[in-house]
């Protein structure tokens, strides 16, 4: 399974902090994102935001990055710390 986390405003829109996705459903972050969008409704619109950032195993990652079982993926809005 791939562990998928959502943070901040995105977590609130989805009303979901974490989901698990079978590794067989996708091989890249872009495919994972499409797979989640297929849930429809808020998932489709929120995940279409091109400002969203992605992390793979706690490092910022790109759409073409490969994902596999045991990976931790996160989607989140632009950061605003400091």
């Amino acid at each position: 399974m791939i562990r998928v986390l959502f943070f901040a405003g995105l977590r609130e829109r989805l009303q979901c902090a974490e989901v698990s996705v079978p590794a067989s459903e996708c091989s890249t972050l872009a495919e994972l994102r499409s797979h989640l969008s297929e849930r429809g409704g808020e998932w489709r619109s929120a995940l279409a935001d091109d400002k969203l950032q992605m992390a793979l195993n706690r490092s910022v990652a790109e759409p073409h990055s490969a994902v596999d079982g045991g990976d931790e993926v996160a989607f989140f809005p632009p950061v605003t710390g400091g």
Partner: protein
Amino acid sequence: MAIAVSVQREAFDVAAEYAQLRRDNSADGATAMFVGSVRDFNVAQSVAHLELEHYPGMTEKVLREIAGEARQRWQLGRARIVHRFGRLDPGEDIVFVGAAAPHRQAALDACAFMMDFLKTRAPFWKKESGPDGERWVEARESDRDALRRW
């Protein structure tokens, strides 16, 4: 330790952070520090308090990478980053960065560098609560622009 980072709910103590930068470190004659605090207004609305969310695990990793990069670029003896999360009221401190180096401009530039990268790379998100309710703070173009000089 040459590099130390902490992500914590509790307030930090500037004097203790300074002491860590200086301890057993008489080779570095220059120590620069920066503290970011909650202002009582942001853009238009007045802020009653902030709620700071972060991504546990990734946050520490990113801060450690930023401090390590600063240490290499400026040959710092020490670099420290402390960032709070949770509820923060106006006037409270949010973030501390500190650098100790043999030369003053290295220490000051390293602090500027660490803050610029932290602002755009460390996974923290601020939600403001004010008289008009809650809202997530928008990332600022000026923070992304600040990275270009490094």
